[in-house]
C-alpha cells in the first residue's frame, strides 16, 4: 500500500472516530480509563526524565560558559528557553510516542487479531468511535498538564543541579528565569503539545486498528507506529516553529 492510500485511510478513520458517542455513560467510563492508562501512568517517566534533563541542560550550559564576561544568569535563561520551547513539548512528546504509542497499537492490534473489534462491530458499535475517541480526548486534555509539569520539573531540576554542584547560585538561576519572559512561548508550547497529543493518539490507533495477522504483526505494527508518530512529531515541530515563531 502506498503512502497516499495510508493517508486517505487515516482520514477516513478520523471521519468514523469523530461521531457522537452512542452512549455517553459508556464513553465517560472509557475516557476515565484512558486518562489513567495514557496520562496518569505516564506521570512517573515524565517527572523523572524532566527533572534530570533540566539538571543536565543547566550543568552543560554552566560548563560551557568560559568567558567571565557572560553573566551566570544566562544559565537560567537558556534552561528556561530550551525546556519551554523544545524539551518539554517535543522531547517529552517523543518519549510519550514511544511509551503510549506502542501501548495503543498493541492494545488495539490485539483486539483486532482476537476478533474483539469484530465482536464490537457485530453488536452494532462504532468500534473506532468507542476505542479511539476517548484516547484522543484523554491525550489532548491531559497532556498539556503533563507537559506543564515537565516544564516545571525541568526548570526545578536545573536549579537543584546548580545549587548542588556550586557551578551557579540559585539566585543567579532565578534571575535568568525572570529575564525577558515572553508568555507567547508558553502558548507556542501548548499549541505544539495539543497537536503532538493528537498525533500520539491517532497514528498508533491507525496502525493497531488496521493490523492484519497475528502477534508478530501486532509487534511490527507497534514499532511502525512509534517510528511514524516520532517522524510526524518532528515534521510537525518544524512547520509549527516556522509558522508560530518566524
Amino acid at each position: 500500500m502506498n503512502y497516499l492510500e495510508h493517508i486517505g485511510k487515516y482520514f477516513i478513520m478520523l471521519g468514523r472516530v469523530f461521531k457522537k458517542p452512542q452512549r455517553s455513560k459508556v464513553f465517560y467510563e472509557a475516557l476515565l480509563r484512558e486518562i489513567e492508562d495514557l496520562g496518569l501512568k505516564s506521570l512517573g517517566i515524565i517527572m523523572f526524565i524532566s527533572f534530570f534533563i533540566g539538571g543536565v541542560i543547566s550543568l552543560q550550559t554552566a560548563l560551557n560558559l568560559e568567558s567571565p564576561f557572560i553573566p551566570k544568569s544566562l544559565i537560567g535563561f537558556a534552561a528556561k528557553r530550551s525546556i519551554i520551547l523544545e524539551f518539554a513539548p517535543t522531547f517529552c512528546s517523543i518519549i510519550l510516542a514511544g511509551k503510549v504509542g506502542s501501548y495503543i497499537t498493541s492494545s488495539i492490534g490485539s483486539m483486532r487479531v482476537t476478533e474483539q473489534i469484530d465482536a464490537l462491530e457485530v453488536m452494532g458499535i462504532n468500534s473506532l468511535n468507542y476505542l479511539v475517541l476517548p484516547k484522543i480526548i484523554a491525550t489532548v486534555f491531559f497532556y498539556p498538564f503533563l507537559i506543564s509539569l515537565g516544564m516545571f520539573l525541568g526548570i526545578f531540576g536545573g536549579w537543584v543541579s546548580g545549587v548542588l554542584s556550586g557551578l551557579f547560585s540559585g539566585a543567579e538561576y532565578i534571575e535568568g528565569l525572570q529575564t525577558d519572559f515572553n508568555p507567547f512561548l508558553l502558548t507556542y508550547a501548548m499549541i505544539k503539545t495539543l497537536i503532538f497529543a493528537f498525533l500520539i493518539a491517532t497514528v498508533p490507533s491507525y496502525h493497531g486498528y488496521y493490523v492484519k495477522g497475528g502477534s508478530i504483526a501486532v509487534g511490527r505494527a507497534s514499532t511502525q507506529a512509534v517510528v511514524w508518530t516520532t517522524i510526524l512529531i518532528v515534521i510537525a515541530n518544524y512547520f509549527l516553529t516556522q509558522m508560530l515563531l518566524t
Partner: protein
Amino acid sequence: MIEVKKLYKGFEGNPILKGVSATFHPGKTSLIIGQSGSGKTVFLKSLIGLHTPDEGAIFFNGTLSSEFTETEKQQWRQEIGMVFQGSALLDSQTVEDNVMFPLKMFTKQSDEAMLARVNFVLKRVNLENSNKKLPAELSGGMQKRVAIARAIVMNPKYLFCDEPNSGLDPQTAIVIDKLIQEITDEYNITTVINTHDMNSVMEIGEKIIFLKDGKKAWEGTSDEIFKTDNEAVVNFVYSSNLFKKVREAYLRETK
C-alpha cells in the same frame, strides 16, 4: 428466517465463495461444515455483515440486508448474537461487564435491571458466581459460555457461532453444543454454526450444509449424512475410522 441467494465473495482477485445459496429457519440449528479454507468463515462473516458480498443477496425475514437503512441496520445488529471462534471477550472487562456491555450500549434499563438480566443469562449458561472474573481467569469452555451469554443477552433473533467447539475437550464441546441447541429451541432463534467437529454434526445438525471450494456441495440432515453417497461429504465426514464404523453400524441397523 435467513435466505442466502447466490453469494459470491473474493479477496484481491481470489474467489472464496462461488454462488452459495441456503435457507436457515427459526428454531433450527443449521451447521456449515467443510474443510479449512472452504469458505465457511467468509460465508458466516458475510451473513453478519463483516464482509460485503461481491454478488448475491441475503434476506433477513424477507428484507434484503444490502438495502437496510442506517436505522434498520442498527436495529438488525441488535437482533444478532455472535459467538466467535476465540470467544472475543473484551479482555479488560469482567465477565459481568462483558455480558452487560450490549445492554449498556443499546438499552436504557436501570443498573439493577441490567444486572438481573446478566445474572439470568449467566445462570442459563451455568456460569453463576463468575461475575467478577476476568476472561483470562476462565477456562476455554467457560469463555465460550460467557460468549454465548453475551450473544443471547439481548434476546437475539439470529445466533451465529464460528467453530464454538474449537480447542475444547469432547465433553465440554458436547455441553456447548447442547446449550446452543437448547437456547435455539427455547427462544426460537435462527442459529447458524460453522464447525468441523463431527460430534456436533451428529448431535445437533438439524440442517447441514457442506461447503467445498467455496460452493455448496451437499445439504441435508444428520440422518441423511449417514446415508449419503456424495463422495466429497463421505471423504470429509468419515475420514476417521471411528466415524466410518459409526456409519457402517448405522447403515446396518437401518437396513
